[in-house]
């Protein structure tokens, strides 16, 4: 019995996280740029949670906050726990690469002066590392001679596969993948996502940050929708497969309808810039259901088995 409870306990739990940057304005004035506000998220072992949302909604920053690679002028409040243990900067550094692996967003995160093979194994020259590297290269259709290449010689798609393999080879129980699919064709993207599914089925927890939400619907267990630095909805992936009617937040519905296969119909307007956030519901300026009450703080509420940050959701 106890074992079961352990398994259901979230591996990573982010509660009420806010991240702000201390920026200089013109001259000597400083201001705080709040890029993530009151964000919550949890991932259980054996589960893929996909994070969907517009660029600039704080998806990558969340990943950086978890592994502790935010820039110097960032300030962080709220709590991030790993297996119930609060992660401070020291622990983040100790866990990074061993228990928590990050698949970074761009090729710029590879060391330009180190050959690819060495980067994948992390300098580990042991036989075992060699063998698993070969296996992983095969799995990702990476030619063996790529090992000897420097990152600049890789095409975008190859680089992406190399980045994924660096995380797969480590023994981490939590994998955070920041946009692992752009630049990959459908086949490769599915292959990469399948790898994450396999990893999850082995009992690891995967956080998948992606724009290719249509792919994510099929592979993930739950989807978290981010907007302007906060979670607006947290729902089962099935709800997204079934269509806009099953979704709770107006923004999630809009996302669904904007997909090329679902009509390609965008809602007008823009995500607010972090410096000029509206009061209350961050989505309200673009929302068709906006009322006076939307200007108050909107809590997360549970509706039909999912969580939503909207007072009009049914």
């Amino acid at each position, binding site marked *: 019995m106890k074992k079961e409870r352990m398994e259901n306990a979230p591996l990573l739990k982010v509660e009420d996280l806010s991240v702000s940057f201390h920026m200089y304005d013109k001259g000597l004035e400083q201001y705080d740029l709040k890029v993530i506000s009151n964000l919550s998220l949890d991932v259980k072992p054996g589960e893929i949670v996909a994070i*969907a*949302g*517009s*660029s*600039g*909604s704080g998806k990558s920053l969340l990943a950086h906050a978890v592994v502790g690679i935010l820039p110097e002028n960032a300030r962080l409040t709220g709590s991030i726990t790993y297996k119930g243990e609060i992660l401070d900067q020291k622990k983040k550094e100790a866990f990074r690469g061993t228990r928590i692996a990050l698949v970074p967003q761009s090729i710029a995160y590879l060391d330009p002066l180190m050959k690819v093979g060495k980067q994948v194994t992390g300098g580990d020259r042991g036989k075992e590392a060699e063998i698993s590297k070969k296996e992983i290269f095969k799995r990702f259709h990476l030619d063996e001679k790529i090992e000897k290449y420097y990152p600049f*010689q890789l*095409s*975008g*798609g*190859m680089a*992406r596969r190399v980045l994924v393999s660096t995380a797969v080879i480590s023994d981490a129980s939590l994998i955070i993948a920041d*946009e692992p699919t*752009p*630049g*990959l*064709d*459908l*086949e*490769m*993207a599915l292959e990469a996502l399948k790898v994450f599914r396999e990893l999850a089925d082995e009992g690891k927890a995967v956080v998948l940050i992606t*724009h*290719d*939400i*249509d792919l994510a619907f099929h592979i993930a267990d739950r989807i978290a929708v981010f907007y302007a630095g906060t979670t607006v909805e947290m729902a089962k992936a099935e709800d997204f497969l079934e269509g806009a009617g099953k979704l709770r937040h107006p923004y999630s519905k*809009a*996302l669904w309808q*904007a*997909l*090329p*296969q679902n009509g*390609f*119909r*965008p*809602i*007008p307007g*823009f*995500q607010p*810039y972090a*410096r000029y956030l509206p009061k209350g519901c961050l989505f309200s300026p673009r929302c068709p259901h906006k009322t006076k009450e939307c200007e108050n703080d909107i809590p997360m509420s549970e509706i039909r088995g999912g969580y939503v940050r909207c007072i009009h959701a049914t």
Partner: protein
Amino acid sequence: MRLEARNLGFCYAGGPWILKDVNFSMEEGERVGLVGPSGYGKSTLVKLLAGYLEPCEGEILLDGKPMEKKGVCPVQLICQHPEKAINPRWKMKKVLEESGMYREEVLEALGIEEEWLERYPRELSGGELQRFCVARSLFGGTHFLLADEMSTMLDVITQAQIWNLMLREVEKRKIGLLAVTHNMALADCVCTRTINLAQVNHIKCAEESGCKNGCEYGTV
């Protein structure tokens, strides 16, 4: 006008062929989707077509004539990462002024808000920046627009917004559009026909020969 690639071949000095014997042509007003597996040289092809790279073999023709190297280019490229294609020290207004596209109707057509013009690139999101990249490419002399994974880094709402705006302009001005994408659903929505580069690019046959010399100055 007609954009044409004849027997195009390209490789970096000492490297393997990336493109070999590629033949391709499109007409103004056409909307072509360029698809194909990763690593088949889609980005390289559009860079060649837009004149950002020099081909090692073959030629690129506009209405049967080679393209001018200097001056305003009738073939404009829109890249995947708008933040790299904009000078980070410039205000957005200056970005538009650079191409002479700081005009009321352009702002309106692409949904560019007045207040963005006084901001720096880092204060705008990728989707907002990409609108500027499209806007500055849409001047009178543009006959072909090449979009290299233009919306891959954008969320689906922004993607739909920007494509809808762009398609309207492209249609109105009878511009030829070549869209590189991995997203077949998107290609179906946007394009009138698609080309699979895997079928047009003959690198497999050329693997034996490799590129030995003559391409030292392949990069521009």
